[in-house]
């Protein structure tokens, strides 16, 4: 159908539309009109991707000078492929409706193996790739820095975007890294010696260039040709490369010295934590290395590798890592922390020193994106609470909205199980984690559910260790054997290929009618990347609240930073983080309006307002006061009732006018009013 979104003609490649899709597009258009950033939450399975694509493509066609490019970032390869597939569908619809073959150029980059940095990326109307191409400065500098300012950037599935940002800026250095780096430096030295004998002019040319400094890059950035790079700070662009590292030999010697210093730092017997300025002071005191040359390290190494015409730079990843570290640590006095641990906490007897250079501020990596592009859209099925993302990513959105899923029948059933039948409070909290009664009641819950839920059940645990312990104790108590009477059991393992196989078998068992239970881990790969549509997931059980492991020093440092810099209380952040993962887990089961599934939160803490309130609106609004502190038996009764209702035939007519609209309905004044009303309930 062709719809009118506040005067913009949007081609939408379906015969019907969900009301929330209309609201979503409306909000999106306003964001683009305002040339600002937006945060939009809409449940998965309500056609978010096609709404985004339809509107932005229409916008591009209507205002080719205002928006020149769409940069669509998603997280996983299957997600990227789905976007491409939906785009293809949209393009087919366009050419069918307009009768002309589309002159739109779309480009998808996936998998680094076939990474092509074709100049076409600059001319493409739509670019689809993974987050890293924009957020990881090492790749962004290669792929994305020349993308036009008048682009719209979309981060889909963005609920974990802060972690992606942090990961791309953090560095870990072990003894092995240093040893391999040592080899790199030796190789570099030999290569330099060889080249000096054969082609000394090349090195002289490089020296001349370095005296000129990075003026070229500076000009480019000032004239807005390039996106900023957090590893290449503005200040150093205006200066020449310091004399101490200008010649190739001097630079190699400089790296050697820095390397020796790091080796010495790893020879510690107790944990050390310090800030970047403290570290720099220590470097200066010990080996007389100044801050200034350190800042040029990354750029200087890149120039050297270019000059030496080294083909395979992956061999030099250790020395690149160290030079990136050097630049980062000397550039940012805030937002990073250095932690040196002599051994792992679990194994204090085995020396395995690691230097963590940890980024605590996700806004550092994403800042260039917000600054460069006129509209950045952060969107996902679970972004609650919405206001936390602008705070931790440090940007000011022009629109923030959470859309619920309009439903003709309530196809999701969130239940909070707080007690066992013996009134034992259920919780995964640390004090009762080993409690036999809790584990037994959890087992009982799964057993009862396996008897009444058809096809597939997915259960998530808060961590892998926790799951292992529970599985072992269920095994000893014979609970697993009883579950096997109803369904097959498959369990996630730390090995990805083993888990893939278990997943496939799980689906096979759901497909052929046997039914199966999948035991899995929140924050794991399954919980983040695998959908359990229809019969592959009729119930999701979340055992416990998936808090992150709080004893980690890195996390503690980050929490402190959040408190000091953003006034976010530690507990608020931890709860937010736990709830976004819980929402991700339970959301895996509902992938559309024709789908249905139970969402069982098995921990009494979910009933508290501070937890419940952080769940997405589309889940929260289906929680009734009566379903907040159920026993296992009560849960089973409610679940039975729900499943029986859902098993009734569900036709398109049932949805029409309520959760599904025709073009005529969409044009009626009355329905439009209703849509706005629903959208503004938030």
């Amino acid at each position: 159908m062709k719809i009118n979104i506040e005067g913009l003609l949007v081609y939408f490649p379906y015969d019907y539309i969900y009301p929330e899709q209309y609201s979503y597009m409306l909000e999106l258009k306003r964001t683009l009109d305002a040339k600002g950033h937006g945060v939009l939450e809409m449940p998965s399975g309500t056609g978010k991707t096609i709404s985004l694509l339809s509107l932005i493509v229409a916008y591009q066609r209507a205002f080719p000078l205002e928006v020149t490019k769409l940069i669509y970032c998603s997280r996983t390869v299957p997600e990227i492929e789905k976007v491409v597939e939906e785009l293809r569908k949209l393009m087919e619809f366009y050419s069918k409706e307009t009768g002309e073959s589309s002159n739109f150029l779309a480009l998808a980059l996936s998998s680094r193996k076939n990474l092509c940095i074709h100049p076409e990326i600059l001319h493409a109307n739509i670019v689809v790739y993974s987050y890293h191409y924009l957020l990881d400065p090492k790749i962004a500098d290669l792929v994305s820095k020349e993308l036009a300012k008048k682009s719209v950037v979309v981060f889909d599935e963005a609920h974990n975007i802060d972690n992606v940002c942090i990961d791309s800026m953090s560095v870990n250095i072990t003894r092995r890294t240093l040893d391999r780096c040592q080899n790199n430096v030796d190789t570099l030295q030999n290569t330099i010696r060889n080249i000096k004998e054969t082609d000394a002019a090349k090195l002289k040319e490089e020296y001349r260039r370095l005296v000129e400094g990075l003026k070229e890059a500076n000009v480019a950035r000032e004239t807005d040709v390039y996106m900023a790079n957090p590893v290449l700070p503005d200040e150093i662009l205006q200066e020449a490369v310091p004399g101490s590292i200008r010649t190739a030999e001097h630079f190699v010697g400089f790296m050697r010295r820095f390397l020796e210093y790091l080796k010495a730092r790893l020879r510690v017997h107790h944990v050390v934590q310090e800030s970047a300025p403290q570290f720099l002071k220590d470097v200066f005191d010990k080996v007389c290395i100044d801050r200034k040359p350190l800042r040029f390290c990354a750029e200087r190494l890149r120039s050297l590798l270019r000059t030496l015409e080294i083909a395979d730079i992956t061999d030099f990843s250790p020395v690149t890592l160290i030079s990136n570290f050097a630049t980062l640590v000397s550039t940012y006095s805030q937002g990073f922390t250095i932690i040196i641990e002599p051994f792992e906490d679990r194994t204090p007897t085995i020396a395995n020193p690691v230097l963590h250079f940890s980024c605590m501020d996700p806004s550092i990596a994403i800042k260039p994106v917000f600054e460069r592009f006129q509209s950045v859209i952060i969107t996902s099925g679970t972004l609650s609470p919405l206001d936390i993302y602008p705070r931790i990513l440090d940007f000011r959105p022009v629109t923030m909205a959470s859309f619920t899923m309009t439903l003709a029948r309530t196809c999701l059933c969130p239940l909070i199980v707080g007690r066992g039948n013996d009134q034992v409070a259920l919780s995964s909290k640390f004090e009762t984690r080993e409690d036999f009664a809790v584990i037994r009641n959890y087992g009982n819950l799964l057993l009862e559910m396996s008897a009444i839920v058809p096809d597939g059940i997915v259960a998530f645990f808060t961590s892998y260790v926790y799951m292992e312990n529970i599985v072992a104790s269920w095994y000893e108590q014979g609970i697993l054997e009883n579950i096997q009477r109803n369904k097959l059991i498959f369990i996630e393992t730390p090995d990805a290929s083993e888990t893939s196989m278990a997943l496939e078998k799980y689906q096979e068992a759901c497909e052929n009618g046997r039914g199966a239970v999948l035991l899995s881990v929140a924050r794991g790969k399954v919980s983040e990347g695998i959908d359990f549509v229809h019969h592959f997931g009729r119930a999701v059980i979340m055992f416990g609240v998936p808090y992150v492991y709080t004893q980690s020093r890195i996390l503690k440092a980050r929490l402190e930073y959040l408190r000091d810099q953003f006034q976010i209380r530690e507990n608020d952040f931890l709860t937010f983080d736990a709830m976004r993962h819980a929402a991700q887990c339970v959301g895996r089961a509902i992938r559309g309006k024709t789908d249905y599934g139970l969402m069982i939160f098995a921990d009494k803490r979910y009933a508290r307002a501070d937890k419940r309130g952080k769940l997405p609106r589309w889940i929260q609004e289906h929680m009734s006061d009566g379903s907040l502190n159920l026993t296992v038996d009560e849960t089973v009764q409610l679940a039975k009732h729900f499943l029986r209702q859902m098993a009734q035939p569900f036709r398109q007519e049932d949805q029409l006018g309520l959760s599904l609209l025709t073009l005529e309905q969409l044009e009626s004044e009355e329905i439009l009013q209703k849509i706005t009303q629903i959208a503004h309930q938030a």
Partner: protein
Amino acid sequence: MASLSEEVLLVVKKVRQKKQDGTLYLMAERIAWGPEGKDRFTVSHLYADIRCQKISPDGKAKIQLQLVLHTGESTTFHFANESSALKDREAAKELLQQLLPKFKKKANKELEEKNRMLQEDPVLFQLYKDLVVSQVISAEEFWANRLSINNTDHSLSNNKQEVGISAAFLADIRPQTDGCNGLRYNLTADIIESIFRTYPTVKQKYGENVPHNLTEKEFWTRFFQSHYFHRDRINTGTQDIFSECAKQDEKGLKSMVVQGVKNPMVDLLSLEDKTLDEGYGVSTAPSTSNSNKTVKENSNSAIIKRFNHHSAMVLAAGSRKGETSSTDGNSRDSDFFQPPVKKVKLQESIEYEDLQRENGPKTVALNLKKSDRYAHGPVPLQSQQYTTSQDIINSVNCIRHEMANYKPNLTQVLSNSTASSAIAALSPGGVLMQAGAQQAINRKCNDWCNLTLT
């Protein structure tokens, strides 16, 4: 001759039957005999009708061959050629020996099929009793009707579903203490069958060792004592005969994992576009060495592995028979070629069925083998009153046909009173319409059978 197209395999002259000289013919599908000088057979038996052949003992004066039929009748041939009587009979006997088993199989198969149908369908059995046993129609006529109906859904009826294996079969053999410091395991034939089907390696071991090396009891005792059975215990003894099974399982599991998954949407390995380069990221990868794992952790992960393996084996055992392993033409050797499975899965995952105009509801036909049972539920079988819907439809058609061809015989009309009483009897509620209600139900149940599931 009767039919020239028939292939004659053997001709024996001078064979007497009922004291009459004649010629014996062995043909492709029957054996026949015709008296001398006449060109027709007076005796002809299909091989399929013959139960067995008998010969007169050597040394007897008369050299004879007797054919016993399934019906119990028999025919005797006397080989009367003085010079080669014995040779003639041997030739006939040997040829029959080759031919009969072939037809016997066919006959048996048919018999089995008939038997199975009768057993599975009590209504049909009742009908058989009513019609054939009471000699209303002959068995051939009965089956001639039946088999033609059945042949159409023959493929369906042949495609009988295997009964799967309970995933909890090992749980059913919970040991009980026998009171004197021992354990008792209760094994049934079903459980043994389940173990064999799920773990073919155990079956292989059984075949190798029982009964020459071990008695059956010893074998199972060792099985339950073995570390194979108690997989969570880590150290597998080397003298254990099941240690090899464990190794083979391990191998099987590994090869399954190496093979990878067919469905790219569940392949966790290719989920991420780019993992961070080594050295970057907040969390370091946990050390993968097993050395610093505690015994408990090792045992826990062994349990997890065991469950995954067990479930996979049970699943495989359920689908092993009948289905040939599905080949989907998914070639993996090319990176540039997008495998069809992937394309299909992708299309599936972006489909919004309710956003599209419905092109006819997608339905799955309900495949009912016993429609009556579906419509009525389990009710005790009442003989006589039970007619299948097909029978009723047939008879309705029959009546309709009769009615169409009805011509009043005006010379023999009924009197007024007789006619009105007949009409009353034939009206709903009348004496002759007792079966009407039943018929309505059956009509309805016939409609239900055409129900489709949406």
